[in-house]
């Protein structure tokens, strides 16, 4: 009898471990673009992590397969919408994005470096802020709301042409103080549950948090198409969800705090491939 219980227990234990670990799998988009989903941690993380892993490795088989083919990836529907916006004239200057930038493919390599220091604005800017700068200053058009419809779709389109390139945000120079601010936020416990980002995503990734599989909280796959709300989600929106879950008052998407946090979290994924639009739960 004891033996039997032991055997069952052993099976349960191995099953739990097998479920909790990130999978050993390889992501190739459309049978041509190799995606780096795990790589050596960037230097600034070497004390705490050996390896950084994309959230893709923590998702289920079907979800992972969905991302491997652009036809199956519902995020690409929104990318196509943004591609049309790219060529559409808007604002008082009679310009579209393509008037200055030509084909959107010419923007390959832009997404991996954002957020980045903008000398003219004297601040760290996210890609969406940069797009809005173009819209308000050069097109005479209205700024898009942060992480909403048109803005997030455009970020996804810009991300899609950079897929496969390694994330490479600068953390030194003028961006350093913002990066430090983001780092402090990452390690500060907040909310009634007194959780920091690191408590889940650094100390306990790979474990189950209720029914969900904790990832490292990397944002290389953002904007992400989430199966739960069938639309593209921005990194700031996701931060907001996480902070809300610690039962704290959250910051707003587009706020200075989230920009700092985005820079810091992006830097934790330096070396991973840009994946957006990815598919997540």
């Amino acid at each position, binding site marked *: 009898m004891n033996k039997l219980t032991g055997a069952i227990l052993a099976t349960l234990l191995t099953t739990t471990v097998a479920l909790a670990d990130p999978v050993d799998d390889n992501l190739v988009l459309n049978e041509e673009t190799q995606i780096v989903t795990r790589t050596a941690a960037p230097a600034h993380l070497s004390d705490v992590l050996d390896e950084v892993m994309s959230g893709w490795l923590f998702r289920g088989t079907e979800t992972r397969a969905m991302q491997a083919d652009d*036809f*199956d990836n*519902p995020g690409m*529907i929104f990318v*196509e919408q943004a591609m049309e916006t790219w060529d559409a004239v808007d604002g008082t200057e009679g310009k579209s994005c393509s008037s200055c930038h030509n084909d959107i493919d010419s923007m390959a390599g832009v997404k991996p470096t954002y957020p980045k220091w903008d000398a003219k604005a004297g601040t760290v800017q996210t890609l969406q802020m940069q797009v809005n700068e173009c819209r308000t200053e050069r097109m005479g058009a209205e700024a898009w709301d942060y992480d909403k419809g048109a803005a997030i779709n455009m970020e996804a389109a810009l991300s899609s042409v950079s897929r496969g390139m390694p994330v490479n945000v600068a953390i030194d120079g003028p961006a350093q103080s913002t990066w430090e601010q983001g780092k402090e936020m990452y390690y500060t416990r907040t909310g009634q549950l007194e959780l920091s980002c690191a408590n889940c995503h650094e100390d306990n990734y790979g474990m189950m948090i209720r029914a969900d599989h904790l990832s490292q909280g990397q944002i290389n796959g953002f904007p992400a198409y989430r199966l739960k709300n069938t639309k593209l989600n921005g990194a700031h929106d996701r931060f907001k969800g996480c902070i809300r879950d610690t039962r704290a008052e959250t910051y707003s998407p587009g706020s200075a705090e989230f920009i700092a946090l985005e820079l810091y979290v992006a830097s934790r994924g330096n070396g991973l491939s840009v994946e957006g639009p990815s598919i997540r739960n």
Partner: protein
Amino acid sequence: MASGVKPRVKVPKTAAAGEAVTIKTLISHNMESGQRKDKEGNVIPRSIINRFTCDFNGENVIDITLEPAISTNPYFEFQALVPEAGEFKFTWYDDDGSVYEDSKKIALG
């Protein structure tokens, strides 16, 4: 009138004679069920794709009736035998009378 409707299909460029190929189709469409109400409590009229067909060289491969419970952006994946080179024709029929078409050629190889 549904807006932003755009059909997409994915068919291999070549196949061996007699081979079964996998075809994927998706049409972006709201698929308004007719069961929902707006803020004022008025029923939002039904507006869905109600039929989807695929033909190969004039011969019907698949003919599907879609019902209101089918969710937004209906996706179909199915297999078809390719006896000879030719063309797949895809047709979607909208409640509002619009017909959306797409076609893809396939060669033997």
